[in-house]
């Protein structure tokens, strides 16, 4: 599904250059749940951005479904993102003045769907994320946990095969964090490929099959652990 080979990312500011991702090699299979685990500053967000086509690698290879997306022109990268990738951002990134359902519809606007089809899809996503009851509430007036669920619904609405989550529990209390993991399990059971970047130890012992990839200082630490089983 996703295949990364010898990937490097440098950030240049003035004369100094920061080596943020160092020789990353990673293979993620379809339907797999991968947890990128590492402290703040270890390069997780940068890696997710590159996988989403939001940022480009300085060197190395990134293949998604056998296609090298970093080299595609914008129209194709956008189409790739729209079809294959759903992102759950660390800070939710909702448009506060729009309602929950209006936020969820955003990924479908450039699509060819008509309004009825859009409404159907939005409804279904809200149900999966368990937030239908707040559909008309402005996002700015939702609690943290509710915002998170709207963000999940939005990430799901275009039915992507890959879901990227950046620190999904950083802004949630323990109760809501556990609820999030339940939803993640549903997504896993739906066959989605899931990649979670987190420093939260809650993800160390998931109740469903997942793989932990430890990151440190921009590198993947060699020893990978497989945890849990498919129940």
């Amino acid at each position, binding site marked *: 599904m996703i295949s990364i080979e010898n990937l490097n990312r440098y950030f240049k500011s003035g004369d100094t250059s920061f080596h943020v991702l160092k020789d990353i090699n990673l293979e993620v299979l379809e339907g797999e749940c991968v947890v990128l685990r590492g402290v703040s500053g270890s390069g997780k*967000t940068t890696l*997710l*951005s590159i996988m*989403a086509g*939001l*940022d*480009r690698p300085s060197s190395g290879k990134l293949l998604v479904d056998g296609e090298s997306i970093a080299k595609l022109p*914008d*129209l194709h990268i*956008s*189409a790739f*993102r*729209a*079809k294959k*990738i759903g*992102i759950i*951002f*660390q800070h939710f*990134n909702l*448009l506060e*003045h*729009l*309602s929950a*359902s*209006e936020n969820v*519809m*955003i*990924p*479908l*606007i*450039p*699509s060819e*769907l*008509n*309004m*009825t089809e*859009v*409404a159907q899809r*939005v*409804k279904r996503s809200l149900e999966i994320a368990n937030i239908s009851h707040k*559909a*008309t509430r*402005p996002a700015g007036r939702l609690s943290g946990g509710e915002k998170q669920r709207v963000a999940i619904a*939005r990430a799901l609405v*275009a039915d992507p095969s890959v879901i990227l989550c*950046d620190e999904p529990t950083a802004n949630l209390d323990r109760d809501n964090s556990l609820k999030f993991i339940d939803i993640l399990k549903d997504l896993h059971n739906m066959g989605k490929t899931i990649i979670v970047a987190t420093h939260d130890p809650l993800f160390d012992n998931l109740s469903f099959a997942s793989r932990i990839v430890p990151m440190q200082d921009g590198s993947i630490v060699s020893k990978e652990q497989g945890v849990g089983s498919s129940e």
Partner: protein
Amino acid sequence: MSSKSFLDKPFFGSPFFFFLTLEFFKERKKHIGVVVISLVILFLLSSVLFISSSIRYSIEQTLDKEPDFVVQKIQGGERVNAPAEWIDPLLEIYGINKVTARVYGRYFFKAKRDSFLIVGVDFMDEQSHKTLESIMDETDLKSFLSSDNMLVGEGVSIYLKEHFYPNHYSFLTPKGDFKKINIFKVLPKESNLIANDMIILPMDLAKEVLGMGEDEVTDIALNVPNDDEWDNVADKISAFYYDLRVVTKHDIKKAYENLYNYKGGVFLILFLIAIVTFVLILYQRYAMVYSSERRHIGLLRALGWSIRDVLKLKFFETIIIVIISFIVGVVLAYFYVFVLGAPLLKEIFLGGANMKNSLVLVPVLDFGVLSSIFLIYAVPFIAAVLIPVWKISVTDPKEAML
């Protein structure tokens, strides 16, 4: 507050237009400042253009009624009174008609600061000026001529009332005599562009008040119905006397237009400066200052929107702002100029005339003018928004993740 959402209430339109209206109405605070500045600029710009095109229209209408040619006597480069006998050879020239001797001049009041235009009229004769003709038609000549009477423009009437002469005025002639003349009637508002500061007197009375000799006239007016003959006739007349000058309607028109074009031009330059400044501010706002715009665009791109999708949204958003500001600005200006009579601005345009002029601005809608207002405003505006948006859109939207 949206109590009902698109989920239960179907929206008949594309998802794109649904989202466009959402963005627009739920983020109206973001747009309000831009719309207000646009409105002010467009309102002033259209007001000035409405006033100047209306005045130009009135001048054209007025000049249409003026005689084609005016023959003057020149002394030392200045116009002086002409001998009445000059009229005789003019009558002989083939191709001209309506030859009339005219008597008029300025009469200065008290401190010699304010002045009126005295016009002498031979009531038995044809009138050189079409406005005068219609005024005469509406006047009861018998009673008017039975004693010393005058017809006065609205401005004159107001001035005299303010100086406690509601019914008559005693003119001081250049010989030192007082001549008491009654106000017979006030001229209608519609004639204000030319008659606001005018006093119409019978010919003899006018000559007396202006201190002119019996066989003198101010100038001689005539018409040349065939346009092709104008140059020819002008040459012929000029040849009669070496101290004779011919002024044509074209010359007068040009003088008027120069005056109003000058005032209009000053305004236009001011507006161009205002628009350029405004556009620069907009550009700044979208280019750098507005980091939320950057985040907003980055988020849309992260959610699968292409650069084209983002530009399309921003383009329509901008077009809506431009069109709303344009329509509201122009309608307000129309109301201000043609219904309220453009208080303040009119003074600036007609300033220099020494009397309050209640000139009626005739509604004139010039679509050429309207479309140039639209272009002058809309093109830089749209560019100022879309160029920075495009620049933001083409960079990789990695900020969306932060």
